[in-house]
């Protein structure tokens, strides 16, 4: 299936990637080329086949619902914001989202 410029614009927005107008057409061509190659999958009869999401067939391990030690634990705001491009006190700073 070939995809057009408008679909690329929509997908770029879904992916939150700013894409200039002049890049849409070349991207549509590239992605269409890849999708056409992928189309061969339509030849296969998948009626009644289970979709496979993982190769590991084990039950998810359960643990007590308590704070963990180490970096996934709580009470360490300095470490949490240490890599953020913009912070104030222990908050991440972003443009205003609620008027």
């Amino acid at each position: 299936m070939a995809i057009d410029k408008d679909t690329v614009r929509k997908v770029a927005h879904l992916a939150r990637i700013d894409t200039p107008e002049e890049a849409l057409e070349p991207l549509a061509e590239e992605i269409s080329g890849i999708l056409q190659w992928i189309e061969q999958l339509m030849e296969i009869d998948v009626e009644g086949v289970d979709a496979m999401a993982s190769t590991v067939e084990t039950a998810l391990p359960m643990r007590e619902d308590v704070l963990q030690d180490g970096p996934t634990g709580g009470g360490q705001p300095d470490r949490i914001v240490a890599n953020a491009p913009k912070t104030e006190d222990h908050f991440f700073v972003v443009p205003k989202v609620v008027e």
Partner: protein
Amino acid sequence: MSPAAILQGRPLMTDLTDLTLAGLRDALKSKEASAVEATQAYLDRIDAAGALNAFITVTADKARAMAEASDKRIAAGEAGPLEGVPLAIKDLFCTQGVRTTAASKILEGFTPDYEATVTANLWRDGAVMLGKTNLDEFAMGSSNETSYFGPVVSPWRRAGSDAKLTPGGSSGGSSAATAARLCAGATGTDTGGSIRQPAALTGTVGVKPTYGRCSRWGTVAFASSLDQAGPVARTVRDAAAMLRSMAGPDAKDSTCVDRPVPDYEAAIGRSVKGLKIGVPKEYRIDGMPDEIETLWSAGVDWLRAAGCEIVDISLPLTKYALPVYYIVAPAEASSNLARYDGVRYGHRAGEYGDVTSMYEKTRAEGFGAEVRRRVMIGAYVLSAGYYDAYYLRAQKVRKLIADEFVKAFADVDLILTPSAPSAAFALGERSDDPVSMYLNDVFTVTGNLAGLPGGSVPAGLDADGLPLGLQLLARPFDEETLFTGLYALEDAAGFSARPDDWWR
């Protein structure tokens, strides 16, 4: 070797970097050499190999400090299994206090405050970190050309040519560093072939264990149901020693299985007599060089001569594996890479309006062309109206491919194939056509889709003097038989070529 060491009557080694990982480990244990000396020897070689661009970050001071600590533990009789062995780490593993980039601009300035489980396991066992190796951006590539830090140049060259060749990808820095003897071994990750293909292209050994053997915690995620860590090494024994340390249960990754890790080195040298080796006819593809076909036949002959029974098998869905991969992997990537939003870590665009434009500009600036393309394909195949036709269908075909292997492994112990469809190609030669680049992984990607362990060993040279590899695949969690088979191939092939140090 220091004058003091010579005075103490230790055997003089010409160059510690010529030892295999296992050889160095044993020399350190018996105090014939020190970890500090070995580490400095590697750092000197790294210093002189800037032309290869194999490292994004060299951690010389940390390496020396770790080596000193190793020497103390050796002196105190407390040496771990990899004590003092200098390793390079693919820059996809988060390393505490050392910047981690995934070869992407979007992780600019990111220094993890935690350590990946795989690397933590290596340090627990005494290994020394030399630095972080270059890779394709977010491990998306087969030639190491998508790195924000520029391509890696292979230490190998065609006879009579100085054209720059690819070391493969995505673990191209790790394969180049191992082949050029800039480290005793290196970690890699393999989502569609990113350990085995670069190993094949650089005359090194690369092993991807069963999905679930190594924890993925702290490893930058690409496609979560396919990503698996493994070693790039000079010999099969070296790879076995590294994997034993890297693997193991981890409560922080629920897909990491709770199984004991066998002593993989003990599987090396076991007899392969009576093992059944499957040879799948569908791995004979159009346009594959005769040399690879010939090498594959040689591999069959070597294993037959060693007492294996050769069985012709059929895996009819092989040709659908790459199309399945190029739906599943981008879909998982688009979800995993949604976290790069310019808020919590890494790069944020300099100019933006509202929050959406901040995300969009940040991601447009931060991701390279291949990553942007894959994230968009992922978003497309997961979007309303296309989910069933693409994503769900791909997951079903994945199941059929995995079932094909279950059936095949009812009759055979190992499957023998070429590792890659060609020898190393020149940088820039294939970057125009994504699909032709994707075809590099045609022999390796099935192992990821089915979660199987697989490994590549160098088995010969092509007419230009470039290395070619053979791959073995094994049953899930049967890495021991895999190592037994890989060693039998290594032993029979007797591959001893190495690149000359043209870059020095």
